[in-house]
């Protein structure tokens, strides 16, 4: 069976989500939008999926590969514009061929997550938070073995480090290889993406913390989208670029290199040559690396 995915382009309402790549590769609960859709279509029986990518086609290809992970064949096609669903149907499946998935899964605009058609992802940061929060219970599909639901409404990545002295309040999601340190309070409505660090006694509520983000000790991230050093209040749209990396910063290698001048000296070390885990340690995070999950009491 065939299916077609249309990557969204318009990021004017959520520019931070498109800084690292096209919206289709925006990170959501341990994977990206396009990967979640490919997985869903594969579950429905698709074996050949065409992805229309008006921008960032290479990054979309990198995100989904050849589709072998889901047992499908994927072809990413560059388009000069984002076609509507009807335009794509007219072009690719005008006769409603029997070898296509039945509507509406034959042609899908990835403006929402599978199973949540009423929750647009990219119309505002408030919508982004609402969609992800609603989708949390649906994200744990059989194909996802790196995350498990440890208590009702609490999902934790298998290689996450969660201090037994932290407090997790449902619903919350702690991604793979993420760290939650002692005294931290995560939830309700908190999503910590992969490899992020929540420092000692930090509070995260009604917020999304993007991947590779360091949330410093004693900080409070509430009603916000936090990714790297950018903090966005999703209620007002107010954007703050946090100047002090010990409060909020990126842990990714590229960001480390880019911000060396700013805080490398403060760490008293050669930041550009440091690996992520070493930097996290210097900032007060526990040692990185895989380990068992320690659940708080």
């Amino acid at each position, binding site marked *: 069976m065939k299916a077609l995915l249309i990557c969204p382009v318009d990021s004017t309402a959520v520019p931070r989500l498109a800084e690292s790549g096209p919206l289709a590769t925006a990170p959501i609960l341990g994977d990206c939008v396009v990967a979640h859709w490919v997985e869903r279509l594969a579950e429905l029986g698709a074996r050949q999926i065409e992805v229309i990518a008006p921008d960032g086609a290479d990054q979309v290809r990198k995100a989904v590969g050849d589709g072998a992970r889901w047992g499908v064949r994927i072809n990413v096609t560059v388009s000069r514009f984002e076609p509507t669903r009807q335009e794509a149907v007219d072009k690719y499946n005008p006769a409603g061929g029997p070898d296509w998935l039945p509507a509406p899964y034959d042609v899908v605009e990835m403006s929402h997550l599978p199973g949540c058609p009423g929750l647009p992802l990219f119309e505002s940061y408030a919508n982004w938070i609402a969609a992800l929060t609603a989708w949390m219970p649906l994200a744990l599909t059989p194909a996802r073995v790196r995350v498990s639901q440890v208590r009702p409404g609490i999902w934790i990545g298998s290689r996450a480090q969660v201090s037994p002295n932290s407090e997790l309040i449902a619903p919350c999601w702690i991604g793979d290889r993420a760290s939650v340190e002692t005294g931290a309070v995560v939830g309700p409505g908190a999503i910590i993406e992969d490899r992020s660090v929540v420092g000692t006694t930090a*509070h995260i509520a009604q917020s999304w913390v993007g991947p590779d983000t360091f949330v410093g000790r*004693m900080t*409070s991230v509430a009603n*916000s989208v936090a990714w790297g050093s950018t*903090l966005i209040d999703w209620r007002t749209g107010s*954007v703050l670029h*946090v*100047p002090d990396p010990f409060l909020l910063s990126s842990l990714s290698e590229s960001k480390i290199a880019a911000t060396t001048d700013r805080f490398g000296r403060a760490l008293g070390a050669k930041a550009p040559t440091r690996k992520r885990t070493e930097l996290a340690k210097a900032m007060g995070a526990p040692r990185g690396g895989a380990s068992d999950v320690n659940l708080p009491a």
Partner: protein
Amino acid sequence: MKIERDGERLCVSEINELTAANSSNFRDEINSAMTGATVVIEIDLSKTLFMDSSGLGALFALYRATIKREGVVLRLLNPVPEIEQLLELTQMQQLFEVVRR
């Protein structure tokens, strides 16, 4: 930065930024301007577009100075949304009376 005294009130305004470059000066000038008669200190943050941890430290130092003088109230007026976010991120909004006028 402008400091005006109006009876028991000390008004600090026209602070464009509060960073490592001016936080010591900010703190010292306000401390010098405080007298035994000062009951209210109002820091107008409506023009403050950038603040870092040094600026937050200066506000915290001012907070400590006011709690040593019993009965002195410290108010932050009209912070722009970004500064309000920073105060919330650091949980410092719990220390101050944040007022919008």
